[in-house]
């Protein structure tokens, strides 16, 4: 019995065990102190749909062998650009959403392709270099947000130069997916459209991963030397995985923005890769192995923890945002844990 326990603990990993136990404990406390559970569940569902595709973006990256894609801001900014162009041309509602996605995808393909070519030159340091490439791109685009010729009144400051820090989507395509077929059961709100959109993207990704190219991509990520020997174009599949990841990040950003109701510019995309990476790791993925199920479990655990932490903690501490501090500890803790499994200290 003790032996089986030990094997399981090793398989799941201590940090995941702690997080899961913590998760269950907080929800029990929430029940015990009579917090509005249904409202919290609704919040969790919304957050699930909001972050889902950004976390899915990690899967093709891990499969193709580049590891956790910390260069996610590159794709996210393509999504932001798509959204801004859609607003600029006065698109509203679903048309606005689809135009945003339709503009973002080719942009993300180009950026992802270049980014993939770069990653092929720096094998072994992808995570480190892509972090800083992502960071610097965010600041390059911060200059862009000031000098680019967008002039829709919704976007510009009434006086002065440049675009606003947050751009409201209320009048364009905010909440269109959330409100599509939204089900209200008393206090429980199910954003059906948002969840279906996530499911559709996840399904498409799943079908691709099961296809011939998907399997070849996974094979070349798992064991590049063996794949090369069997005649697979390893570098090509790495670029393919990077492009897919970047495109998913762009689409994910648009889904995120419409659910949030705002597009955030400037430094907002800077740190967005890390929660996505943490979520998939908490779900059971490693820097070398990931499944779509890891994405789903991971977001529920991670976002569930963040959703519940604030109301529970506020029964102890009456002020301060402990949820944010908890996010930092859990998120960076799990990424550190994953890194200890990458090199493995001989």
């Amino acid at each position, binding site marked *: 019995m003790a032996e089986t326990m030990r094997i399981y603990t090793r398989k799941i990993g201590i940090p995941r065990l702690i997080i899961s136990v913590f998760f269950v404990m907080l929800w029990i406390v929430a029940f015990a102190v009579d917090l509005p559970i249904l409202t919290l569940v609704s919040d969790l569902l919304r957050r699930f749909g909001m972050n889902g595709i950004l976390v899915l973006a990690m899967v093709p990256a891990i499969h193709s062998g580049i590891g956790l894609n910390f260069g996610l801001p590159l794709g996210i900014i393509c999504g932001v650009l798509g959204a801004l162009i859609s607003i600029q041309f006065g698109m509203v509602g679903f048309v606005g959403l689809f135009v945003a996605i339709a503009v973002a995808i080719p942009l993300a393909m180009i950026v992802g392709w270049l980014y993939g070519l770069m990653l092929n030159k720096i094998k072994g340091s992808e995570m480190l270099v892509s972090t800083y490439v992502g960071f*610097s791109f965010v*600041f390059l685009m911060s*200059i862009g947000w000031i000098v680019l010729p967008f002039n829709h009144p919704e976007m510009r400051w009434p006086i002065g130069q440049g675009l606003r820090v947050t751009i409201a989507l209320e009048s364009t395509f905010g909440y269109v997916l959330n409100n599509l077929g939204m089900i209200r059961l008393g206090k429980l709100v199910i954003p059906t459209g948002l969840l279906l959109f996530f499911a559709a993207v996840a399904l498409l990704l799943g079908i691709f991963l099961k296809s011939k190219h998907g399997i070849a991509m996974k094979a070349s990520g798992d064991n590049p030397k063996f794949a090369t020997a069997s005649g697979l174009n390893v570098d090509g599949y790495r670029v393919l995985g990077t492009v897919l990841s970047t495109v998913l990040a762009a689409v994910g950003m648009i889904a995120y923005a419409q659910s949030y109701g705002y597009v955030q510019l400037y430094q907002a995309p800077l740190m967005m890769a890390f929660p996505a990476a943490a979520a998939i790791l908490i779900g059971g993925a490693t820097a070398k192995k990931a499944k779509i199920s890891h994405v789903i479990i991971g977001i529920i655990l991670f976002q569930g923890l963040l959703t519940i932490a604030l109301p529970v903690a506020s029964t102890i501490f009456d*002020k*301060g945002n*402990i949820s944010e501090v908890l996010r930092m500890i859990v998120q960076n803790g799990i990424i550190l844990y994953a890194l200890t499994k990458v090199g493995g200290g001989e």
Partner: protein
Amino acid sequence: MAEITAGVKSKSKSTLGHKIGRFALHNSVTILFLIICLIGIKLSGLPLFFIVNELLTRVTRNTFLVLALLIPVMAGMGLNFSIVVGAMAGQIALIAVTYWGIGGQWGLFLSFALAAPVAVLFGKLTGMLLNKTKGQEMIASMFVGFFANGIYQLIFLFLVGTFIPMTSKRMLLSSGMGLRNTVDLSTNESGTAGIKYALDSIWKVPFFYVVIVATVVAIAWFAYKLLNSDRWHKEAGARKKDIRNIVVVSLVAVFSMLAMFAPNLLPKQLAGFGRLKLSFFTALAVASLAIFNQIIVKTKLGQDFRTVGQDKHIAKVAGLQVNKIRELAITLSTVFAAWGQIIFLQNMGMLSTYGSHVQIATFAIAALLIGGASVSKATIGQAFLGVILFHTLFIVSPAAGKNLFGDAQLGEFFRTFVAYGVIGVALGLHAWKVMIVASQNE
């Protein structure tokens, strides 16, 4: 530049283009940065005296932190992003000292003493973790910083005033829980003077007096080497190098004397330079760390660092305790970072409780890389050059952005873009080289 011209004269002319090309290639980041800085200075329209004065302050307060990075590079652990953890140790000590109401030099030395054991503990833990992530030390050390920042916020936002007893109207938030966003270091809890400028204000001397003394010592040293050339010069051309050094140093000495004693003879823009003041003991602290880094290379410990850095397996076969040595390298770096942060903050006079430490690793590492260092090799000279260039950009970029585009923020975005970009490019180039070498060995 002096190096190439001198080198070229001694060799045949055919290698001139080749040599310049190689020099430019090896120092491309530094040269590019030098050009950006010169353009920035021109665009900003700031008076030269202002820039140099500001630069002098920044070099004395920031270089200690950059020098803290050198030992882990020697030990093959790359650029230590977790100096952020050391900075936290320094800040913890500063908060405690300010709370206890101990100011001035005593407060400063107490905070140095207090920060050391805390930093040793943090460094030891970081080192143990980095031993589990061999090959990924840099990214792991970055996440160590992020993770530790979460714990730091947990302690200072939620536990202080609740589980950790502390009562202070001045330092705590009005709810009695958590520290305020800023801790004023100019006054203490008890209302007496804090540790602001505690190190800087001990002795301020005119900068060029120090330069004159330093140049005289340097000339004497090179002259001594020349006179005893048999003992010092095993290789040809070394004698020429000494003569060249004496000439360069003498020129600096002459300029310093002019600045101090005959400013009227200098061009108008340089005439005020005699008024530049140096915080002597802060500069001495920086110089001591530089000398420490230089001396440690010659010791048994330094040799161990280098052996481990070159090849972990050979080091292990040679009987070295690789993991212990790596832990020690990180611990030293962490302790220096803690002291460096205290030196930095006593000059700033204001601790941003949740912000002062966050960016220091990025900026220190960017500065070191701009100076021409790489992941596997970094020297003291590169650290100084890098700090000078990086902070020149910091000083001029808001004004340059304002003059060029009518928006100071643009310049600020640009300098942050450059900081991250330089790190990305330098790390990328290094990874590329490693990959090429690895594929050649196969």
